[in-house]
């Protein structure tokens, strides 16, 4: 009788133990990013790398080089201050909340999925440490010669070398892919980006983009930017 009883107890214990292990493993998997790390101490490149691989790498790739097929630009080489500003703009609906901003609408919920402000800081810090790249040109038909004349308007903020100027809120252009720059110029020109009243820097950029007559002018000026690398 005692043998029968012990066999029964083992028989019931096995599935219960299995379920318990399953639950514990599941709980551990959900805590890849320590939820307790919510202080300024958590703003480190190491934590930023973990967050980046969880939230950003699917589109921007692990090396930050981006992929045109999903409209995700190269972000490696962008300075920390610019990445943070843009992430905050996305989170607050200043950018990426326009009906026609297809890529921005995709980016906005991803920026909101970062749980806390410290996470934004950490990701920005990490992206700022990524090795810059010079993405291969993919836009055809740009006249860099004509673009160099048009670029005189841009260089007041972005610099003659296109390396940007933090004091003006102007990001470096030379590390960004040409397809992305053409697309963003179009968005600024059409009010898809920079039209939100809270977007002070965007409001500066909009009339500059509106000064470009058409898409060819945008290709030309971006063609010149590609020569500055």
């Amino acid at each position, binding site marked *: *009788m005692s043998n*029968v009883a012990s066999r029964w107890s083992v028989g019931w214990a096995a599935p219960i133990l299995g379920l318990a292990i399953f639950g514990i493993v599941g709980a551990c998997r959900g805590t890849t990013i320590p939820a307790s790390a919510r202080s300024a101490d958590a703003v480190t490149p190491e934590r930023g790398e973990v967050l980046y691989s969880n939230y950003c790498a699917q589109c921007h790739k692990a090396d930050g080089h981006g992929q045109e097929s999903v409209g995700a630009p190269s972000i490696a080489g962008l300075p920390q201050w610019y990445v943070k500003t843009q992430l905050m703009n996305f989170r607050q*609906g200043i950018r990426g*909340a326009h009906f026609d*901003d*297809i890529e921005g*609408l995709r980016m906005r*919920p991803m920026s909101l999925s970062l749980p806390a402000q410290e996470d934004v800081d950490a990701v920005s810090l990490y992206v700022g440490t990524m090795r810059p790249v010079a993405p291969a040109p993919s836009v055809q038909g740009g006249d860099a010669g004509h673009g160099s004349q048009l670029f005189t308007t841009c260089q007041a903020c972005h610099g003659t070398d296109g390396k940007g100027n933090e004091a003006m809120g102007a990001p470096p252009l030379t590390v960004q892919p040409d397809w992305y720059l053409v697309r963003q110029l179009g968005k600024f020109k059409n009010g898809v980006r920079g039209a939100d009243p809270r977007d002070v820097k965007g409001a500066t950029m909009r009339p500059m983009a509106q000064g470009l007559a058409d898409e060819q002018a945008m290709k030309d000026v971006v063609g010149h930017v590609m020569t500055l690398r």
Partner: protein
Amino acid sequence: MIESLVQPGSTFAPDIDFVINLVGGLVFFWGGLTVAMFFWLLWRYRYREGVKALYVTGNEPELKRWINIPHYLIILCDLAIIGFAVQTWYKVKQDIPPVDDEIRVVGQQWAWTFQHTGPDGKMGTDDDIKTADVLHVEVDKTYQFTLESRDVLHSFSVPIFRLKQDVIPGREIQGWFHPTVAGAFDIQCAEMCGIGHGIMAARIIVETPEQHAAWLAGAK
């Protein structure tokens, strides 16, 4: 049951709730009965010293009726479910009421955008109002919506309306709803659409006529 968890907020929500409650109630009844029977049999024929197990084939009439009678009763329940489901399907998909206004709903990874007709009440004109993440409608008006996708499969889900409709790239899918309760409610995507699927949320603001007029005036 379900209406106590999620408030019904459209004219067809009570009909859909009835079918869900009917299916849920019948499944609960038969499932509970089966589980109770199962444990009763486990207890009734538990191991006893000196008693050998009896092998039964299940073909004996007095045993087989334990299967047959519930089987016939469940078929009757199925027929009732089919009857009520077809009735509800007709009301939601076939018996479409006159439309008061139109909305264009565009799904994309991972946001909902909306095109409202604007003050002139006509879609595709200059005074259309385009929004991201927020849909404005008026209570007690019938809306026809057109669903479009910019990329992959999505599903336009408004739980309070009991509305869930797939959005398919390349197609313009139409449907309707008639809000009956004012307030702000959830819109969600109910079709796996990529890494941001779980956060592809928006809000529907169901407004009184005065609130809606004020929004229209301020939106342009």
